[in-house]
């Protein structure tokens, strides 16, 4: 299972509720969705492959983690350092 972020096309914004329901029926576990057309979800690879090319979806990415360095760092650099 992977944490994913789905962004839907502008033109389907008014159908967000219907789309969320449809994704749930397709096996997507929706954890958050936002009125500006972003859905946070959990899905396995098979489901991701199945929904990736739906016309309503313009972006499907693995959820990013934002981080800052530990408090003792004098330079508050971002990760991967």
């Amino acid at each position: 299972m992977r944490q994913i972020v789905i962004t839907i096309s502008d033109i389907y914004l008014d159908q967000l509720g219907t789309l969320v329901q449809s994704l749930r029926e397709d096996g997507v576990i929706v954890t958050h969705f936002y009125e500006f057309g972003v859905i946070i979800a959990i899905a396995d690879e098979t489901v991701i492959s199945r929904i990736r090319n739906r016309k309503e979806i313009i972006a499907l990415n693995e959820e990013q983690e934002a981080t800052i360095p530990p408090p003792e760092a004098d330079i508050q650099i971002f990760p991967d350092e």
Partner: protein
Amino acid sequence: MKPPILGQQTFLRDHPATASTYDKYYRERYDREDDPNPLFTGRYLLILKEGSSNVLKTTRMLESKWGFTVANTADFVRETLSESKIRSANALFYNELGIALLGSDKTLVDRLITPGADYLIEPEKVVYIPDDLPEEEEKRSTWGIRLTGADRSPYSGKGVRVAIIDTGFDLSHPDFSERVITSESFVPDETIEDHHGHGTHCVGIACGSDDSEGMRYGVANEAEIYTAKVLNNQGSGAQAWILDGITWAVNNQCRVLSLSLGSRVYPGQRYDMAYERAAQYALSKGAVVVAAAGNDSRRSRHQYSPVSSPADCPSILAVGALDEKLQVADFSNRALNKGGEVDLAAPGVAIYSSWPMPTGHRTVSGTSMATPFVAGIAAMLCEKQPAGTPSSIVSQLKEMAKRLSQLPEDVGAGLTLAPMRDE
């Protein structure tokens, strides 16, 4: 000589009408007896229009016609003149100046004022040392506050809601005891309390004021503080928490959102559509979003990294970091990916600001520190222009920026400057 009646101090108001109404006021309204700090001594100056040439003639006139006993400074060639030496006289002519000091009462002086006279009569003024004039206290400020002009701006972000979306905030910090703070944690099982420090530092830069020693370190020191915790106490957060924080801030009518956080982006990588959509939502609701360009570069080693996410989104202002000499910070990222521009630069090296107690304050570096400088200045602009749209605020931030010699890929429009009053 009649001694002068002196008060302690007086100041005339500096008003354009003062000069034109002064004589009228003095003649008709001014009552020296009721003024604890009188303007005049109760003595008068007779000023010859032709200067010293008529001293002798006028002396005779004063003595014979009006009964004055007149002393003359010319009598004091070998000794220093002092009024105590002429107690018996009620007039003193300053021979070289053609001016006589009259120690007589007002009734007699009024009779001296005649049309066509070759002299003027004016009341002798009391001269004060303005030792109680309040001196302009020299306020101390951090270098970032000075260079951005935040300490000279007439704006303070008053009435403007600014959201700092970060690791939370130390609500018990003494520097903020008088401030109204609205907070919300979107990190499961963690309160708003900032056990990292990063969020408290960023709030301090954007919206703080002075420390207990009077050092100013905050930009919009009267802004309304909204602080969302979206990174946990270890300094990491899920994208959903950040979107929660953005949504919360927008729905609370915050006009500026400051995001000193990010994820590393690789050359060629496209901006994140979810963040872009959230930023577009913020813009549509009247909010400006600023974010840190990221600290992944090591310029001294010729290593340059692209602007981080979400700062690389077209609808988010990306902020690079400068040092005190206005050089690009060694770590500050560069605009390498299409659309991932650096929009503005701000102080981001050795920045002093608040830190959770008991530490109180700390000096750290990063584009995380540059970002709240821009957020605070954007709040000042929002105060200046309450009806300003996000696009007009962004345009003005760029127009007002101080142009720098460095590449726009590194500093965008330049050093962000605080708004001043229009001429």
